[in-house]
């Protein structure tokens, strides 16, 4: 089953693997903080009215926040 969607579509508590970025404008800092293709992530928190999303990087248990607009260009494979 094809399950490639963007990261912002995930609900709280859902896990996924990062596949790729749809934009080249995303700075390298996303990689440096752990959003590397192949990484397992879990959505933990969402600020209301399309605010930032809090995402746990599963392998090192780090909690990273990004904007919804950035989550939209991160393609994931749901687990």
């Amino acid at each position: 089953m094809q399950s490639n969607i963007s990261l912002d579509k995930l609900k709280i508590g859902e896990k996924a693997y990062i596949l790729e970025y749809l934009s080249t404008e995303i700075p390298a800092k996303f990689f440096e903080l752990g959003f590397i293709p192949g990484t397992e992530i879990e959505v933990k928190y969402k600020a209301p009215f399309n605010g930032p999303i809090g995402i746990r990087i599963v392998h090192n248990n780090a909690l990273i926040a990004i904007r919804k607009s950035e989550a939209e260009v991160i393609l994931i494979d749901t687990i």
Partner: protein
Amino acid sequence: MNNPIIALLGNPNVGKTSLFNRLTNLNQKVGNYPGITVDKREGKLTKGAKTYRIVDLPGTYTLYPNSLDEQVVFNILADSNHTDYPNLVVVVADPAQLNRSIILYQQAREIGIPAIFVVNMIDEVEKKGLVIDFDKLAKKLNTKIFQTNARTGEGLEQLIAAFDEKPPLYIGDFAVPTAFNKALEEAKSLFPLHTEYATWQFLAQEHISFISAEKNNALARIRETHKLTTQALQKAESLARNKRLSMDDSIVRTQADSSKGDPTHAIDKILLHPVFGYVLFFGLLFFIFQAIYTWSGPFMDAIDEFFGYLVSEIHTRLPEGPLVNLLTDGVVAGIGGIVIFIPQIVILFLFISLMEEIGYMSRVVFLMDRWLRPFGLNGKSVIPLMSSVACAVPAVMSARNIENAKERLVTMLVTPFMTCSARLPIYIVLIGLVIPDTTVWGIGLQGMTLFGLYILGIVAALCSAWILNKIIKNTHKSFLIFELPTYKLPDWKNVLLNVWDKTSGFVIDAGKIILSISIVLWVLGSFGPGEKFNNAEELIKAEYPTLSEEELSKEITSYKVEHSYLGYIGMAIEPVVKPLGYDWKMGIGLIASFAAREVFVGTMATVYSLGDDVDIEEESQKATVLSRMRSEINKNTGLPAYNFASGISLLLFYAFAMQCMSTIAIVKKETGSWKWTLIQTGFMTGLAYFAAFVAYQLLK
């Protein structure tokens, strides 16, 4: 003698500052890096006959800079001619995020700097159920690994003993992906003296400040011919390094359930809750501002009393004369005007640094980003905007950690609209004069007006941000990514040191300006041209032969001010302020306020011949000022000078106008541009004039 320089390098929230405080044992100072205003924390450590210079570099995830703070790190580590170029770098790591620190360590070594590796917060290893193979780590990094707990001092001696060590040769771990080989070869011919990795770093950044313009251009041409972007190069490196690290995952293992014993998630469930999270945040804000006003009260009274006592002591001990007056009314009053702000600044920064220490500040960014983004601001703008309620000077400085240049600029430009504590005394006096002391639906009208003025400040800041956002072009796409660190108990030493740094910074930086302005004002107010000023005493005595000694001297003071340089300036600008409903006396107050708002009340008291040591905090004296001001008649209109229309007009003027030399100075320093500083000053003051004009013309 050149002491060896030891630089501490590490991610944010790894306890680097605690380690720095331990190593230097308070023997430290905070300055600025030349040209830019990134805090430079430096200290001394003496061991036996040797002294080391310890430099605490700003926290960063990699050597690639995303913000001004991170730029400093790269410039120091990559430029061997830099005055702070270290002899040894100590990479400080969080055991839970070892890989990130390993990458930072590798980057430092490959760029050509000797480095050792410290795993700090070693107590967390057990708490989080981690198992670290230190031997394997040492082998991988080819260096000694140290284990410390900066909060208890554990492991520090061994670390200090290693400061003279020369770490063994390090072979790079990063193989440049073959796709970039050609470009890198071309770049290497430009930098024959640098390591290959240093050259790669140069190629992977837009602009390197310490190399020549020709070489920067040459690098840009290489990127262009090979169709490379700096971000692509940086990502390729990050990808390659992480891949290497994940192949070797036997260094750190997590035992059993790692989330056990970590209350962060449970706390975040409440603090990041879509409803309670905001309720708690605004509750906390409310508490902080209550604390700023109520807790600081007794301290401010004590400071005020002390300076009053000082002035009277000087007057009794020293002979009368212009020099003594300069000392009391210029210097002592000026210093008093600075010191009086200390309690509020201390309390504000106590809360801010506590919030940062605990890890709550990034949660505030998480909650607020959504609401500030439509105005072209960033979640991180919350901190400057909030701090600005105490004072715009430290607030503008706190905009530094905003990565996006445009968002940082907009934040700095709109921050002074927020109602700072210096506006408060003016608001209190003016509201007391023109707003009736009655209640509507059980709410005090005067208190409501004060609250309204605070709201007005916020609205003005957000609206101007919105306008600026439309005008200023963005060079980089706005993005936001930040870590929400695990909650920690605060390290009180860090908190207190931070409060001390910020407070002393205010006293020295803003203090210099406030002091010099108050001296200039004293001179302008104490001297005047011609007969009328010099013979004021005879003239007044002739005019009011029946007055008592005390009243006579007040009349003389008032007459003197009227005919002093300051008085003439006030009269000269009267045509400008007349449409706003002010007379020349209020004009003097306005001019004086351009130095700093807080001098308004004192200046008005002088002009209205009440003597200038009026304390509006004290009820009886406040009543004196109020009744005197209430009975003042504007000679142009024949109406009371402070009627409803002119009072509202004055309140609006103070709410919007840029009347603070210290803020202008700090904005110039932080933006590095006179253009933006002048635009800001012009815009704010123009808006103030416009609002005051409209209000007066409608209400009169």
